Every structure is written in structure tokens, then in C-alpha cells.
């Protein structure tokens, strides 16, 4: 399994187009935060991390979109499905490989912003409660900046695995990599745009059910998303983790698939 996962990471991540985009995003992430007081810097950090979601989505689906379409276009799916481990393990190896790849990329982007925040705030303000940051102004949350940073990293990892599985499923049912790229991007992008539009009307909290906000957990705190909606979101994510690999497998081994 280790060799299969490593190979999947090599297929998805170690491509010039991905590496160049990744480097550009890291450089871009480095220039987002302005030096200011600690509370301003940390508010800016969480603001910019959510603001950069479209770019995180872009690179996430760039990594995943071709995962299965590459196999179909090279006829490797046929070779894989005639091997002992191919039918059983490749779908799982792809998921783990894609999850690791997107996690490395997405967490690295978040970490660069964190590190920049630490430098620009002179390593202070980590114990500030979120309610003291303008970005979380109405939340009344007593969670500290450091706690939010840790929670966000964890949810970005879980979210990366979720969106990887979603992208893999779309890739498995598509003939061209552009389909999972567009549809995956829409599934991530539409809640982002609509929640931005509806945030002033007080409806934003309903986006707490979306996996996007599950990934960007700072939004759940910012808009005081009720626990019931968070539970719905957790159910959606768990259902995705259970169902999507099964549907992906079914599609990948389907007769006559090319």
C-alpha cells in the first residue's frame, strides 16, 4: 500500500504545473498580512485565510481533477484492473495520496500566513480571545487565537481529505479533467460567493452546513453557527467519507470505462 500511495502522490503532486502554482501561491500568501497591532494582524490572518479559499480550491482541484481521467486516457485503468491489488487498493491509495497531497499544499499555505502573522505581530497576541478581533467581532467567542489556529489546521486537513474524495469521485465519472475541475470548483466556490453575498442579511450561518465552512472552521465561530447545523455538516462529511469511495470504486471498475 505504501508504494501505491507514494506513486499516487507522485502522479498528482509532482507535476511542473502543480509545483509552479504551489510556489506562486506560497509567495502570494507571504505578502497578504500587513504589520500592525497584534489584534489587527490576527484578525487579518483569519480574514486572509478565508479570502484565499478560491486559490486553495483552484490548486486542490488542479491536483485531483486528472487522478482518474489520466488512467482512462492512458489505458492504465485496464492494466490496473487486471492486477491483484489494482481492483482492491488503487481507489483507497488514490484517496490517501490525494488527501496527503492536498493537505501538504493547503496546510503549507495556511502555515505561511500563520508564520507571516507571527512575524508581523512580533510573536504576540496568541492568547487573545477571538471576540477581541474585528473579524470575529460579533461572535463573543472566548477561543484564543492559538486555539483557533490549531482547530483551523485540523479542519483544513479533514477538509482537504473530503474535497479530495469529492474531486476523485468527479474524476472517476468523467472523461476529461476539466469536468471535475469545473464542478469541484463550483461545489467549493458557490457557497463561498453566496455566503459572502448573504452575510449582511444574517443568513450566512446556514452555510455552516457546507463542507467548505467545515474546512474553514473560523467561519463557524465568526457567524456563531448553531450546533445543530454543525452536526448536519458533520453528518454530510461522514456520509461523503463513506459513500464517495464506494461510488468512485464502482465507477472505476465499470466495464468498458475509458
Amino acid at each position, binding site marked *: 500500500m505504501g*508504494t501505491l500511495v507514494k*506513486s499516487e502522490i507522485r*502522479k498528482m503532486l509532482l507535476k511542473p504545473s502543480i509545483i509552479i502554482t504551489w510556489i506562486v501561491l506560497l509567495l502570494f500568501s507571504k505578502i497578504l498580512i500587513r504589520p500592525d497591532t497584534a489584534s489587527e494582524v490576527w484578525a487579518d490572518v483569519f480574514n486572509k485565510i478565508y479570502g484565499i479559499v478560491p486559490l486553495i480550491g483552484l490548486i486542490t482541484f488542479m491536483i485531483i481533477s486528472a487522478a482518474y481521467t489520466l488512467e482512462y486516457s492512458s489505458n*492504465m485503468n*485496464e492494466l*490496473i*484492473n487486471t492486477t491483484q491489488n489494482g481492483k482492491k487498493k488503487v481507489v483507497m491509495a488514490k484517496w490517501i495520496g490525494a488527501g496527503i497531497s492536498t493537505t501538504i499544499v493547503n496546510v503549507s499555505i495556511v502555515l505561511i500566513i500563520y508564520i507571516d502573522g507571527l512575524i508581523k505581530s512580533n510573536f504576540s497576541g496568541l492568547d487573545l480571545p477571538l471576540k477581541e478581533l474585528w473579524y470575529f467581532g460579533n461572535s463573543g467567542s472566548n477561543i484564543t487565537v492559538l486555539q483557533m489556529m490549531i482547530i483551523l489546521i485540523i479542519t483544513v486537513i479533514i477538509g482537504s481529505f473530503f474535497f479530495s474524495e469529492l474531486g476523485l469521485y468527479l474524476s472517476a465519472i468523467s472523461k476529461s479533467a476539466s469536468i471535475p475541475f469545473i464542478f469541484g470548483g463550483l461545489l467549493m466556490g458557490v457557497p463561498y460567493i453566496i455566503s459572502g453575498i448573504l452575510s449582511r442579511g444574517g443568513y450566512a450561518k446556514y452555510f455552516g452546513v457546507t463542507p467548505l465552512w467545515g474546512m474553514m472552521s473560523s467561519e463557524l465561530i465568526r457567524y456563531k453557527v448553531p450546533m445543530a447545523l454543525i452536526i448536519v455538516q458533520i453528518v454530510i462529511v461522514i456520509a461523503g467519507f463513506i459513500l464517495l469511495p464506494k461510488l468512485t470504486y464502482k465507477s472505476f471498475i465499470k466495464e468498458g470505462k475509458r
Partner: protein
Amino acid sequence: MNKLEIKKLTKTFGKKNANSNITFTLENGVYGLLGPNGAGKTTLMKQIVTLTKPTSGEIIYNGQSIYEKEDEYRNIIGYLPQEFGAYKNFTAKQFLKYVAALKGIDKNKASQKIDELLNLVGLYEVRNKAVGKFSGGMKRRVGIAQVLLNDPKIVVLDEPTAGLDPQERSRFRNLIADISKEKIIILSTHIISDIEAVARETIMIKNGSVIIKGNHKDILTGMKGKVYKITTDKENEVIDIQRDYKVVNLQRGADITELRVVSDKMPLYASAQSIEPRFEDVYMFYFDLENTKEV
């Protein structure tokens, strides 16, 4: 000794029979699967390698249905799909390691086997070069190396020489001849000379059914009295012959044109004379020229 029995195999897609009631038995050796595009060769091979299940009929390997112990059967097959393309950003060695993992081969054993196979296919020196930079022939050789990783008893090669230059084709044929010992090798192709060069027997498929199976000598014997040479110096006769007969070859000289035709009956031309059949005549006799890409 390996024995693969195909019994009354039928595969239907909607209302179309891709394979219809195919029955034959294969033992160790190279078998050429010959037929035009859409004849049902790939469908047959996909059933042999468990990619597709037959609508009816059976495939039996050494007395046991291949679907009874599918995993065990997969361990003894090697398959090179049509238009196979390895991952561009993998080196030859990385790619073979990946396939070895797919085939469940132990890491240490795999490493040794990979070096051995890279030597066999003449790619050891470029083992750390990206496959994306390989020529078409080199990629096919990587394909053959992956086929052999698990020391398969049944090897299925789908159009392995299509698009290769004559030198690479010759190299590929020699490679197939080298590995054919104690294996059943099924080689599907449009290229008649490949089959003539390496196959012990040829199976010809048309419209999903087997129309001929036999060794070359028997097949050519069956063609005796069906191949003719006609010479003429009249252009309108050349046009008539091309209209009325399947012309395998046409050679124009300064005054005389020589035509090689296949026909059930002696052509009604004074110059017509029966000649020794060649393998391409067999193909032309059963199939149409437009389906032949290369000979």
C-alpha cells in the same frame, strides 16, 4: 503445460454481439489474433484478462473457470492494453515499481526482477529517465517489462506494435519470441507480418466470430487455388479486374501491369495463373483492404 479453453463465449453490448459463440483451446505458444477494427478482438481479450465478463460461455484455465478464483488467476496474467501510455513523470524504474506493487510482488523481489527486465528490454541504461521522454518503441518495451513482472503464464498483448517503425517492430517481435517459452501469448494485431514472424497459430476473427484457427502452413494450404497473378497491357482491363476481384497487389511496369488477386474461382482472363499464397492473401481473402492499416 498451460491450457486456456474458451467455450461458447458470447459477449453482447445492447443488441450487438461483439463476440459470438467463440470456442477454441490454447496451449503454450504465441497465438496471433487477426481481424479488422471492430471484429471483436479487444472484447475477447478483455474477457480473457477479466476486464469484462462474458454474457454467456466460459473461460477455463487448467480445468477451472477463471471467475472461480479471480484473484489467483490475475496473478498469472500479464496484459498490455491497446494504446498503453505509462505516466510521463515516472521514470521507467518508478513505473515498474508501481506496477509491481499493483501485482502484489514483494519489494525486494520486485527490485531484482525490475533490473532483470529492464536489461531484457534494453532499457537498463535509461531506467532513471522519465518515461515521457521515451520514444513510442521504448514505451512499448516498458509495457512489455510490466507484463512480465509477475512471470505470467498467460500474456495478452493488444496491438503492441501499432505505430512503431520497422526497427522497433523487429525488436519487439524478437522480444516476444524470447519470452514465449512456457507461456500462452495472445498477440492481437492488424500487422500480418508480425503474426507471420512469431505466431505458432493464427486465429482470425470477423464480426465477432472465429473464421479460421490454425498454423500458418495449414492456413496457406487452404488458400491454394485462390491466389492468382494476372498480367495485362490494357488499362481498361486493370480497371475491370480491380472492380471484380480483391487485388492484393498491383505492379505497373513500362508496358505491362501485374495484378495479384484473391478469388474463389479462376479469374476469366487468359493470363491468369494460380500462384503460391502468402499470408497477406489470406487476410485479403477474408477481409477488406480498407480495414488493413499496415501489412
